[in-house]
């Protein structure tokens, strides 16, 4: 097991290095540069732009910039964000906890809800409940995330103004509220983005989980359990579910990177200043180091997510050996 994990970590390191190298080169090859984008106003001379490039080291050859970036990154210095005019590490340190909260909450709810929905459907496959839940979640599975987010925003923040339209907290009054109301304010701001993300992820999880449950239903041990007098509902919940959890564990591993990458469009629609929004802002500004840092964090999360999923699957299913 240790050798396996060490091997996977080595593989992950190589993948992360390749991905970030590729990103670094590609963003530098793309047309435009961050200084041209930043100083795109009348009267700014090329001399001034060149001064900025020189002072930020952007006038050096790409190879040299890359080596410096690698060297600095090894020391924990991710460089300087030109768009935000702050150290990249500080910008990410602000955004990451917000995304962890948003996506972490949404994924927890999604897996809980997705499994419950799947169980409800699998108890009576083809029945009215299965059909209706299947239709509802098929629709949710099919709609684009930004569209659902905008609809939710319009309905609950504008038509029925019962929830805030965006942001993390009420921008003016939050700090003046008593503790309990501050918590309530924060929760209210979470409802729409978390709700939207939860609906979208639940649709995917419930479909996978339902299929897995239906696969194990014809098993001999299930027939035995029912023959012994266990109701179909209890048999599904006690026996089938445990044996059908593998797809959800795999999915959890695949969703894990979203904890740090965020949900770009959801964050944008609900003005949630997390990692997704950061990436969305960094790309049009050609903010080289911020883009590369976001990709670095993302690729590490993907590698860890895949590893965790494999290990969890192995732990859950004794038939699978990881070594």
């Amino acid at each position, binding site marked *: 097991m240790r050798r396996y994990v060490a091997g996977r970590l080595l593989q992950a390191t190589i993948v992360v290095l390749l991905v970030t190298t590729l990103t670094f080169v590609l963003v530098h090859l793309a047309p435009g540069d961050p200084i*041209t984008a930043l100083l795109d106003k*009348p009267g700014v001379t090329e001399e001034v732009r060149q001064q900025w490039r020189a002072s930020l080291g952007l006038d050096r050859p790409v190879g040299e910039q890359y080596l410096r970036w690698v060297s600095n990154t090894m020391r924990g210095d991710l460089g300087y964000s030109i768009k935000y005019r702050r150290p990249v590490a500080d910008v990410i340190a602000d955004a990451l906890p917000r995304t962890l909260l948003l996506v972490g909450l949404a994924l927890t709810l999604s897996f809980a809800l997705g499994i419950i929905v799947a169980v409800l459907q699998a108890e009576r496959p083809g029945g009215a409940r299965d059909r209706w839940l299947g239709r509802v979640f098929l629709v949710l599975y099919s709609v684009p995330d930004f569209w659902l987010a905008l609809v939710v925003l319009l309905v609950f*923040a504008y038509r029925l103004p019962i929830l805030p339209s965006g942001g993390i907290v009420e*921008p003016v009054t939050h700090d003046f*509220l008593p503790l309990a109301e501050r918590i309530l304010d924060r929760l209210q701001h979470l409802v729409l983005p978390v709700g939207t993300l939860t609906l979208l992820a639940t649709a995917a999880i419930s479909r996978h989980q339902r299929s897995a449950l239906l696969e194990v239903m014809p098993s001999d041990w299930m027939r035995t359990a029912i023959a012994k007098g266990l109701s179909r509902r209890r048999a599904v919940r006690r026996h089938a579910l445990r044996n059908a959890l593998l797809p959800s564990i795999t999915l959890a591993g695949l969703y894990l990177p979203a904890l740090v990458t965020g949900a770009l469009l959801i964050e944008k*629609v609900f003005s949630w*200043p997390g990692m997704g929004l950061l990436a969305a802002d960094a790309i049009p500004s050609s903010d080289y180091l911020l883009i590369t840092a976001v990709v670095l964090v993302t690729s590490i999360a993907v590698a860890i997510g895949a590893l965790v999923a494999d290990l969890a699957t192995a732990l859950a299913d004794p038939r699978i050996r990881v070594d």
Partner: protein
Amino acid sequence: MIQKPRSFRPHAARWTHVALAGLVLAGCRDVQKQPAVAGPNDVGGTLVATQPAEPGTLLPPLISTSIERQITDLLYDRLADIGDDLNTVGDRGFKKQLAAGWEWAPDSLSIVFHIDPRARWHDGVPVRASDVRYSVALMKDPALGSPGLPLITNIDSVAVRDSLTAVAYFKRHTPEQFYDLVYQVSIVPEHILHNTPAAQLKTADVARHGVGSGRFRLSKWEPGKRIELLADTANYRGRPKLDRIVYVPTPDFNSAVTRFFAGDADFFEQLRPEHIAKIASDTARRAITYPNLGYAYLALNNVDAKQPGQPHPIFSDRAVRRALTMAVDRRAMLKNVFGTYGMPLYGPFPHALPVADTTLPQLPYDTVRARALLDSAGWLVGPDGVRSRNGQRLEFGITTPVSSAARKQYAVLLQDAFKRVGAAARIDEMDNAAFTSKNTDRGFDTSIELYQTDPSPSGFKQSWSTSGLGKDGSNFASYSNPAVDALLDSATLTFDPSRTRAYARRAFEMIMEDAPGIWLYEPPTVAGVHKRIHTTAMRADGYWSGMADWWIPAAERTARDRIGLRPAP
């Protein structure tokens, strides 16, 4: 007046609305007839403005974006501010800020500024003449790389005569030397910045502290969440009427609009036509049209994008440029894109400028004449309906940024208009970085430019004279006409405003005859504002110039207006 804060339940209160079915729209609120002027009790309240981005820096010599300028204009004062008529010649109309007065030297090569002894930085330290000297020296320091550096090259230096007297020296006596100094240079605190070398200020944290002498001071900046400005109650120019302004970044346009209409923001600076129609029936919000200095035109590149320095195979021909201009029904396009809110562009200038002349003769919309002109210039219609001359097809690209809905619409309409006279245009949509890069390199055939000029006539030299041809200039069409150069030079060198207008008028007339661009529109700048906010007159170079005098009648305040000036715990 500082009021005891109440317990706020901003959204909890809204849950009750659900139970009260039918009373759901936030618009059904108290809107009273607006008093014309603020009363003594009308001091206080909070304005929440939603903005698409947040600033990167709050140090005036380093600013480059609109939001940075807006916030720094509120935080920092200048020696004097430009007048409402935007005159840039001499000192006529300029309003005192940090300078309580000024005197011109007999040779006009220096101006003595007397600093208002009451002026204080937000940390309580008095503003001194040495701050003026430091501000100019900092902006002129090449190590800083100030984007505004090219605008103050005529300023030689500033000397300190005594703690409240600064003397500014100029290299040449020019009509705009006063404007160059007082408009382009915001005064920054030497005692806070002098320990940081200029070369390091771009990345220094101190550049985000925002300690100025303006009527608002920076209270809190939580990146991604909000920027809060509080009234500087002891300000030498008087306390602002609002207690606070809170900027909330909302990157998505639709989300920003929803935030405004849901009541979570009081001000949104860029409504689109569909929202303007909607706001007409809104009882709580209203639309305000404010002037601006932007203008949009289709630049017809005079140089070949593929072979820099060579004339463009199509657009170096004046007849083609004039014909294509006549092929475009600009009024119909304006109505198509902006409805009744569109503002026509009469030439290479926004109408709000003092030198603008909207009566200049225009090339008419006349497709018959356009076709005839192309025929006579040798561009003959081929079997596929596209004209050509000597093997060169009348085929070109229209470059436009993908982020601009209006310009994308215009690109389609222009493509259709050109097709009708036998020109095949393809639309090249690209992201902002690529668009800017193409602009800088003049790497396009035609490009829909949205250009923000400054109040000075010298801005036109950058855009339309030979001196603006290089990468440093904004002459995107690579247009060059020595007669226009001479007229624009004269316009910027005369001290008589009426002669400035006359020279500029003739220059504009010649540019319009040469048709290096097709004048499309002035961007309609319509802000949405909550009706309880009473605004003042808005200037074309920045609607926020009078924001410190915006006010909220005491009777119309909401919960967030009643917080007072108490800092957050």
